[in-house]
């Protein structure tokens, strides 16, 4: 279980990206974070695995405070939490299989791994992961030869290699077309349901939110302004919507959101 307590992030330039945010994530949830661009979604997700240093607050992960972890203990926490990125963040010039194997780096011996030597069970696991996302035939290709959808599937396979208890996904489908978006979120849903891995995912489109989330939180200007179940989000009122997306925001139709702010 993950519990965020009074999390605040102030960037070096003084931007207050998160203001005293507190919430809980139960094991097995598919938690979606919504909010306008700049509301602090990425900041929140990156604080959880400490790609960004939180300024204040606690991040309790099964009772231990991630915010205070460092060195080895931080790496041990990180390997339990997979991450998927909007721009995939694959190592472009490396092969697909190397990208997938790099998900094991937190487990294997550092010295043999830097020589690209991985235990054979890890190699098998890597093929299994690629099989799960349906791209075993691409294993030997260079990562940048793949299409966007395929690259994101490699990203998922890499996260799965960590044998994670939770996966953080920062706008995993924002650079993909709607069909691919459903396919990628479908994989995340499978992972969530079948392997009982908690998912924390930021999304921009309300129809996707409604379809995949089990619970939703909304951020606005770094404040937590909304918390609701899947049922709640399906019958979200205009007032709640405006609370998250601002007064000028207009709901174009049941699904998509048109923000009044930038983007």
């Amino acid at each position, binding site marked *: 279980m993950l519990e965020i307590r009074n999390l605040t992030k102030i960037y070096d330039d003084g931007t207050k990206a998160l203001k005293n945010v507190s919430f809980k994530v139960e094991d097995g949830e598919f938690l979606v974070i919504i909010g306008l661009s700049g509301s602090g979604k990425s900041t929140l997700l990156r604080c959880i695995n400490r790609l960004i240093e939180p300024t204040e607050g606690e991040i309790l992960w099964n009772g231990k405070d991630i915010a205070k972890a460092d060195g080895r203990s931080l790496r041990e*926490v*990180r390997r339990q939490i997979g991450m998927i*990125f909007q721009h995939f963040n694959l190592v472009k*010039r490396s092969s697909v299989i190397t990208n997938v194997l*790099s998900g094991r780096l937190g487990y294997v011996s550092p010295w043999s791994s830097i020589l690209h030597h991985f235990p054979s069970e890890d190699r098998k696991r890597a093929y299994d992961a690629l099989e799960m996302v349906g791209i075993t035939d691409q294993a030997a290709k260079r990562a940048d030869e793949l299409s966007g959808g395929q690259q994101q599937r490699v990203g998922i396979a890499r996260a799965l290699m960590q044998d994670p208890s939770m996966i953080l996904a920062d706008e995993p489908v924002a650079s993909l077309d709607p069909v691919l978006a459903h396919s990628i979120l479908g994989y995340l849903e499978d992972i969530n349901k079948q392997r009982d891995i908690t998912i924390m995912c930021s999304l921009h489109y309300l129809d996707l939110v409604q379809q995949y989330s089990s619970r939703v939180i909304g951020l606005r200007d770094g404040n937590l302004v909304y918390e609701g179940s899947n049922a709640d989000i399906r019958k979200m009122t205009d007032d709640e919507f405006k609370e998250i997306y601002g007064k000028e925001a207009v709901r174009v139709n049941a699904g998509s959101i048109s923000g009044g702010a930038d983007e």
Partner: protein
Amino acid sequence: MSNPYKVTKKPLLPPAVSAVLSLIVPGLGQLLSFRIRRGLFLLFSFVSIIGLFIWRLQVIAHREIGLQAKFVKSFSREPFFIVFICAAVIALWIWIIYDAYKTAGGKNEKGLGIFVLVLIMFFSLGWQISEINLGKMIREFPEAWPPLSRILWPWEAAVTRDTSSVTAEAAILVDDTANPPAIPEYIEGEPYIKSTPTFGKMSTLDEKNNMVLGDIIHLEGSGFEPDTLTEIYWEDSIGNEFRPRQDGEYVSLVTDGDGGFTFDLVIPYRLTPPSAVGQQIHRVQARQTSEVGPVKASEPLRLTIVLMLETIFMGMMATFFGIILAIPLSFLAARNLMSGSWVTVTIYYVIRTIFNITRSIEPMIWALIAVVWVGLGPFAGIIALTIHTIAALGKLYSESIESIDPGPIEAIQATGANRLQTIMFAVVPQMIPPFVSFTIYRWDINVRMSTVIGMVGGGGIGFLLVQYIRLLDYKSAGIAVWFIAITVAILDFVSSKIREKFV
């Protein structure tokens, strides 16, 4: 940012006063109208042009005393230069006054023309200061042509053949007549020379260093190769050999159809050593040299090839050591990897600064230092090139580390990888193409540099080239120049091909 051409404050003084101020101190009027940059530019240009001009007067007429005398003298020496600068200074001055008047009136003119005028003035001063002399270049070309042509086409000197010589000699008693030596014994079929008489007075120098010719001896030879060039040599009483000249030319003759000759030789001048006592016996020799055996590479060609190889390997070794040391240092000099704590940031700044200073000192200067350190030779050159390479590659490497995509690094960190793993998996793969490309480029530069680093004693072909030029052996120098040019051209081609592959 404020626009320098925009008047933000009202001019302090009325136009006429501004104009007068700029008459006294060019640019002051503009400054007081708050056209700070314009005023400073005009003031600085005006003062430095006047300063440079006075310096040149000093140089052109360094014997004259007093500015006026110097001016008059300089005018007679370089009228065009003096008139042009004076006219331009006056034009500039008038323009500055006019401009001060205008700006104080609140007008804004770009004044592009005046920038061009200032530029032309600096250009003509530069021309004069750097002693550019196109006329000399053309006038002296005929004299420069013979050595130049030897450098351009040196290939006759690239091959030689072995020589063998046949010599006959006869003894001559000089400055004495008692007991002259006998004529040599004649042996059938052997080259033979005899002199009549076998004694005589040597040529001498009078008090005014004019040559006073000595006695003439009649030489008769036989048994040489027929119709062949034969050189006359003289060996003095202590065994030193030289070629005597007659009417400024070395003495030589061509044998007749039977291999014989006759020749009248003036006994040459030779300063006899003061220690020489008693009878002074010299020898006259007739010598025929001929080329025998197959054509082979000449000494200069062989030396050039050997040193060219040395040069290429010097460049290679320097690049190799440079890479090994530059890679670890470049990681410490990459801002994105070193932004962690104040310690790492300090290391970053220190290494960056060292790189910049080291790089700004040319390899030739490093070579001078290295020669003091390890002595003349290729090792000094390698040290110099390595030092420069570390700094140059270190900077290029660290800049390409800085420009890498941080996304994959975050992704690898997020898997729980440690720092070393992150570097090996996320940084190194992104680094390979720029690293290869920069390294090849540097190897190319290093071989080029090592061709000249020998000029200051750093080994390699440059050393040989300078020697040949000092000995006025332009053909051998030409061979070295050609080899350098060919090697550099090949290298250029190869390195650009390899780089194309990797980028």
